[in-house]
């Protein structure tokens, strides 16, 4: 049985059927809020990567397991958001940005979440310990990667303001600067990664082969966070209408 309220709600709906609301039907759903929503889910994953290493530092392996599972959950939520957006872009929608670029940005965001999940899995494979030899370097490297991602996230957050200036003008210049910033931070992360690898190879003979290999994989995965963030920034840059 429908309640009275439900029926009342249906009345305007019925009336709408008798209206010629042509102009309203011209306006579609902007892809930018869903893209930003997806990015916020990705950011949840990235934040948990930080927690993951804090737990490792504390030697709390149970926590590592739970956090790793949480990352998987967030990654799944991001996937749902991604599908939602992709379906919206199916066809017949005209966007202020190149659709392929938009999908590439979405794919990049998605792979960041995937990387986070990978890191989570890698840490649960084996009981690892942060060696004193590279502990500090690793912490720096991790923060730099998170920082780089942070800028990429802010770039995505700028997209709605960019739309309001139609991807041009002062706002576009601002985003361009942020993209430069991402690229610079990624470079810094690269340098840190090089030093970190040197430290790791210092331990080559003292470390079991499996552990050695695992750490290498972990560094690679963490380093990918900044690499992907940089790519993301460059993709957004192609959307801008810059002077000259």
């Amino acid at each position, binding site marked *: 049985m429908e309640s009275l309220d439900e029926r009342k709600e249906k009345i*305007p709906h019925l*009336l*709408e*059927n*008798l*209206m*010629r*609301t*042509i*102009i*309203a*039907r*011209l*306006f*579609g*759903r*902007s*892809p*930018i809020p869903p893209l930003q929503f997806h990015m916020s889910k990705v950011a949840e994953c990235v*934040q948990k990567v*930080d*927690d993951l290493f804090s737990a490792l530092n504390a030697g709390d392996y149970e926590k590592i397991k739970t956090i790793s599972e949480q990352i998987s959950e967030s990654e799944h939520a991001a996937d749902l958001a991604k599908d939602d957006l992709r379906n*919206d872009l199916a066809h*017949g*929608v*005209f*966007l*202020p*940005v190149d659709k392929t670029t938009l999908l590439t940005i979405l794919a990049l965001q998605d792979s960041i979440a995937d990387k986070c999940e990978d890191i989570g899995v890698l840490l649960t494979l084996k009981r690892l310990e942060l060696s004193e030899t590279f502990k500090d370097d690793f912490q720096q490297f991790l923060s730099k990667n*998170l920082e780089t991602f*942070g800028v990429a996230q*802010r770039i995505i*957050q700028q997209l709605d*303001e960019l*739309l*309001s*200036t*139609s*991807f*041009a*003008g*002062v*706002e576009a210049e*601002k985003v361009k600067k942020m993209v430069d910033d991402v690229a610079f931070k990624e470079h810094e992360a690269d340098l840190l990664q090089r030093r970190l690898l040197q430290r790791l190879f210092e331990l080559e003979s003292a470390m079991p082969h499996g552990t050695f290999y695992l750490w290498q994989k972990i560094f690679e995965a963490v380093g990918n966070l900044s690499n992907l963030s940089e790519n993301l920034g460059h993709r957004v840059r192609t959307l801008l*209408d810059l*002077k000259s």
Partner: protein
Amino acid sequence: MGTESVLLGFTLLFGVYMAWNVGANDVANAMGTSVGSRALTLRRAVVVAAIMEFCGAFFVGSHVSDTVRRGIVNPEIFVSNPLFLAYGMIAALLAAGAWLQVASYYGWPVSTTHSIIGAILGFGVVIGGFRAVYWHQVGTIVMSWIVSPLMGGIIAYLIFTLLRRRIFYASNPVEAAKKLTPWLVFSLFFVLTLVMLFKGLKNLNLHLPFARALEFATAIGLIAALVSWPLVRRIRAGVAPQRELEIQPPKVAKALIKAVKNLRQAQTDSSGETHYQLTRLLSEVEMLAKTAQRGMEVEAGGDHLKAVERIFAYLQIMSACFVAFAHGANDVANAIGPLAAAVDVLKTGFVAMEASVPIWMLALGGLGIVVGLATWGWRVIETIGKKITELTPTRGFSAEFGAAMTIVIASKIGLPISTTHTLVGAVLGIGLARGLGALNLRIVRDIIVSWIVTIPAGAILAVLFFYVFRGLFG
């Protein structure tokens, strides 16, 4: 005498019904953009639309009405049987009205104008014969249906591009917008006055040659611009308390999120007074966590853009008036054109048309539109306004400017075009200038299909109704 009176009654009834239909549905599409961008409240939009639609219909409505009345089907063909012309025109009104009801029900983007032209064409060809139709004129009208959305789109695109270059590229967008405002006001008033005055206002026995009209238009444009100048100066940039939100390190946001989690746990497990207090606390901490997460989002830049949009909200009130005026001038013909033709025949018994459409008919049409707006149109405006949430005043202004300019020019030349389709073209123009989040191109396909379907549908219905009338009245 009896039959004529009954027919006259029918004509007026259907004519007013058609005007009501225009006011109920088409005005909403013209005004919806202003409500959607929040430049106008619903109440104001209705008042503005009522006044401007009536003025447009009354002052400039005669041109298009005349085209519909005797520019499509040659009335001379019916000299030997004048009543046929009256039947045909009444049938056309009824056919268009019926077709619009069907189209509304199924949600087809059908144009009032296309329906009525299709209906008149149909009865003209079937009853009067192929030669009864001014094909040359029909060709021009059909061309104008293609050209008007294009032109609306191009003008809107150009205006919006101008705004981008002048305002969004400026280091101080608010100042730039203030500088640009008088120019925009000038061009708006200039065009509107020029169109009104040049060879117009026959109703008021005011004939102005082009040079005089130009002078008048320039003068009025200048006055309007001068008035707007100090007004726009007064609008504050609105940067009042420079809320440069200091960027918190990510740790802060994270800690707050954890706090929210713990609080939520506590809240679900608690009861009574504690539960209530926790609920309050939770919402507060949640807010805090959100702001900390957003960090840089709130910035001076956003405030500037908001101030620009505020300036354009005022400009959009003007463009909305312009659109309503243009719409009244063009669409009143859909009701009054056929009505005038039929009434002439019924009153005199001859196919001898008066030089121009009588004023009282235009006033009747304008009134019909206003009544349609007051009884049903406001609902449609409200619905449309709710659905268009992404349109900002800069976009709305540009789109309305492009559409109104096109419609008002078409009205002056006497071309019955679809105002809604022109506005669709204008909005697409803004989309091409990268001004809108997403546009549904499927509606464009639907519009093209509806063009193709509406003409024969209107025609067939009109012929059907014609035979019904002839059967009833001989």
